[in-house]
């Protein structure tokens, strides 16, 4: 069996909602039925067969050729794997509950927003509000793991509730803002206002931060037993954080944001 592949016949002119192209909705369908699936393309609907050349028969393993206009990739998927070959647009992995979404290029705004499970892996960069809550909502990512090999934009993990976001590059401003819980690890640099209004949760920082807000207090340098355990939890994932170079137990602990609940922490890995 070969992966069910969707190859764009021509570059996209409008934004395309590919949320129906997930294993949950494709398993059991014939190629004819798959071709007839209608997708929202700009302000009208269009059959998948008109946009994509469709090949393969294993609907548990779906591949879509990428475009920055390809929105909602893997939305709500619960199983199987979805590979975007190239870039993805906004909302990749939104509301995902299981399975694995891999984007070989970069992804746009709101990647993995309100993620509920599964693994989202982005080879390139991501836009703002990675793993955050949708506008007006108060609960961002609540489970699962997000791996970003490149850089992330602002407000990563906004209102994040649980799970892990692992950023191998740099992250923008307001990292972990309004977090309720969960873990965000960043290997590179971060922008201003990290942990703004975070109530609980952990920011695990390997690079030097630009500045830490005045509402975070220094608790000193410590050997934390849970750190090796946390990093051990990432074994098996293909990320820098699962390798020996990330394994540390020493970290400077900054408690905050003391202007709110103050039970969060920024750990500056030594």
């Amino acid at each position, binding site marked *: 069996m070969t992966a069910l592949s969707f190859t764009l016949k021509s570059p996209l002119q409008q934004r395309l909602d590919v949320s129906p192209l997930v294993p949950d909705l494709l398993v059991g369908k014939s190629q004819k039925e798959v071709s007839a699936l209608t997708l929202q393309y700009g302000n009208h609907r269009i059959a998948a067969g008109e946009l994509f050349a469709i090949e393969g028969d294993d609907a548990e393993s779906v591949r879509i050729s990428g475009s920055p206009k390809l929105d909602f990739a893997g939305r709500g998927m619960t199983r199987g794997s979805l590979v975007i070959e190239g870039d993805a647009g906004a909302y990749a992995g939104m509301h995902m509950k299981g399975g694995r979404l891999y984007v070989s290029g970069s992804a746009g705004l709101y990647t993995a927003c309100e993620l509920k499970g599964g693994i989202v892996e982005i080879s390139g960069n991501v836009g703002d509000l990675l793993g955050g809550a949708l506008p007006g909502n108060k609960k961002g990512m609540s489970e699962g793991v997000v791996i970003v090999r490149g850089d992330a934009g602002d407000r990563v993990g906004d209102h994040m509730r649980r799970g892990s976001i692992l950023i191998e590059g740099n992250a923008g401003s307001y990292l972990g803002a309004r977090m309720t819980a969960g873990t965000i690890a960043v290997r590179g640099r971060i922008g201003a206002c990290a942990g703004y209004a975070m109530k609980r949760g952990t920011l695990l920082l390997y690079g030097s931060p630009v500045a830490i807000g005045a509402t975070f207090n220094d608790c000193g340098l410590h050997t*934390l037993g*849970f750190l090796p*355990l946390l990093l*051990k939890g990432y074994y098996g994932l293909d990320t820098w954080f699962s390798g020996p170079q990330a394994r540390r137990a020493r970290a400077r602990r900054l408690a905050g944001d003391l202007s709110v609940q103050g*039970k969060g922490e920024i750990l500056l890995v030594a």
Partner: protein
Amino acid sequence: MIINGVHIDETFAEAFPMRATRVIVTAQNLKWAHHAAQAMTGFATSVIACGCEAGIERELDPAETPDGRPGVSALLFAMGGKGLAKQLETRAGQCVLTSPTSALFAGIDEGEQIPLGKNLRYFGDGFQISKRIGGKRYWRVPVMDGEFLCQETTGMIKAVGGGNFLILAESQPQALAACEAAIEAMRRIPNVIMPFPGGVVRSGSKVGSKYKTLPASTNDAFCPTLKGQTRTELSPEIESVMEIVIDGLSDADITKAMRAGIEAACGLGAANGIRRVSAGNYGGKLGPFLFHLREIMA
């Protein structure tokens, strides 16, 4: 049946169902893991008055522990789930939480989940932090030496308690030497503990007493100094009897341990004063698990 001059009685050990859990105690080094685990499993020889039966199962390499530090695994057994949960929580709180550098993890994932750090976390007085790692919840409780890391729950499974055998010897030192050899062999068997001090019991008991308030009293039939006073089970040359009690996660585990222990005791043989191996039973009325010595040693 005679093994190396030791007579194996045609009798059986009688065991009963219990509930059990395994916990893993880690620390900066094995010395401190043992301090915590020994305190936690202390005064846990018999459910008659201790609330639970517990013991250290084995030492663990750093590669075997969740946090990559040296540790030991301990098994705890009780007659019911409520009792086990209560004993575990009390002992973990008083003995592991208090012990420097310690951390406490579940050693059994399956079965009904009972609290480990679930309530101990409140010791953190609001400063405790929860972390879910690999689908399991852990608590980081701030303490004076750093943080006490404790998994939220551990699994409780059905188990077997009260497996036993008696070693009858010509003298007290010889009986103890045979018991020591047996315990050394049995400690290599996984999933079992011998909860009494050093694994050996000298006070093998019978059910009831002439005193109404006592549920158990000395097993006069196997007391050498009462040979002339009671209906004895001992022949004239027997001067000392010692018992090894075994709790296991299954009857198969107890069978393996009994075989290893009896083999080791018989290894010393009649030449070293070991004359008989017998077992404690209550005529099959105590529990559904019967361990026939001769079948085990066949």
